């Protein structure tokens, strides 16, 4: 059975994330790791905005916080968010990757190493190529790779970059992503 979901998104992904979070039940059985590009000087507001419609609690985790099911973990602004092998969050101010901190690639890679074949990785709308390598790694380690249908994306660069590198398990619309996650219950 799956143990975690990791989602990466950038430009055009906010509404998709909000829709997914608002559809998940309060007792959703997995943790949801969110690595989303955001303004580095705006520290507050984002987690609150995501929380408005979400039934699961969304937090910007503290360093070394234990990952628990039924919670959303949003990478804090200006930090990378990693998963340690003991399933704790680790934060980092190491150099940006592809101009991004948080880097979706790094969250996906380390989450994949921690959860191996027990993880679902989802890449959403975005205007750069971040996430493509991370999703590839996740798939190589046995995880399930999902990409939002580029035709539905506000900006399709990120999903197309992922599809180019990885033969994914599913190309889904937002509604199909939601249906897939709800079946995990």
């Amino acid at each position, binding site marked *: 059975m799956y143990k975690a979901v990791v989602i990466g998104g950038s430009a055009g992904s906010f509404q998709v994330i909000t829709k997914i979070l608002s559809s998940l039940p309060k007792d959703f059985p997995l943790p949801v790791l969110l690595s989303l590009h955001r303004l580095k*000087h705006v*520290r*507050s507001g984002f987690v609150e905005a995501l929380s408005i419609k979400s039934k699961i609690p969304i937090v*910007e*985790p*503290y*360093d*070394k916080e234990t990952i628990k099911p039924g919670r959303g973990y949003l990478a*804090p602004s*200006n*930090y990378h968010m*990693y*998963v*340690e*092998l003991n399933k704790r969050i*680790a*934060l*980092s*101010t*190491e*150099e940006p990757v592809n101009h991004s901190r948080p880097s979706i690639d790094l969250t996906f890679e*380390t989450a994949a*190493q921690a959860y191996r074949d027990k993880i679902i990785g989802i890449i959403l709308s975005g205007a750069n190529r971040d996430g493509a*390598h991370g999703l590839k790694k996740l798939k190589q380690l046995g995880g399930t790779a999902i990409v939002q249908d580029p035709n539905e994306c506000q900006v399709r660069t990120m999903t197309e970059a992922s599809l180019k590198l990885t033969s994914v398990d599913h190309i889904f619309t937002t509604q199909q992503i939601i249906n897939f996650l709800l079946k995990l219950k």
Partner: protein
Amino acid sequence: MNKYELGIVDTRNIIKTLQDVYNYDFKNYALTFFKRRVEKVIQKYALKDADGFIKKIELEKEFFELFLKEICVDTTEMFRDPALWRILNDDMLTKLVNSTSNFKIWFPEVSTGEELFSISIILRKLNLLDKVSFIVSSVSEINLENIKNGYFDPKKIETNDVNFKRIYSESNLSDFYSFDGEKAQWDTSLIKNTKFIKQNIIFDDYPKGVRLILFRNHMIYYNQILQERFIKILYNCLIPAGHLIIGNNEKIEYWNSDKDYTLVNKSESIYKKKLS
């Protein structure tokens, strides 16, 4: 992009080599972090694999020093998190520094020194710099040398200038550094009251009577064992009612820690040592 990937066994062997040859104990660094840093060094110096790394580091002391520099994560930028520096400027420093004749500020682990220069600039603008002494420690001799000389990466100038304007809209950061088109350098008179200490991972010797410690975003690279050990040492160095500032998403949390520290500002992670 084929990244070299270090296995867990190789990582452990490297940790053992560093311990055996140089007596530096990295086993309580966060494992994924340590592994990633070594991978980066292996790639940067074209060492092929863990064995290549081990051979080189066993033979070359200079390479070990370079490695110590690489293990330290760049502080990223001046005035990272403007809200904190505004609190220091507006509320904390004037009151605290004026309460004593010798206000000691300690930076237990510096990499590129941005926090040291940020606070020294604030203190100069408040006309308090002469009343303060700094203690700066680092595992990396190379980093300490760069800080002493005030060198910093010119690529950071733009971000630094923008951050500075968020706090001091009426003045320019360029009053405090020089840039000749190649080399960027802080005005080193900002840090003339500074003692530099090269240290091992855990200090051999640490300062006493410290009134303020800035230790932001360093413990994130340690595991919980090393985090707790650090926090306890810092506690012993602070005077009662001294302050400790850690990173926004770091927390002091060990058994009975609320007997030692009061959290005085949650969003900026400012703690105060309790009067015992």
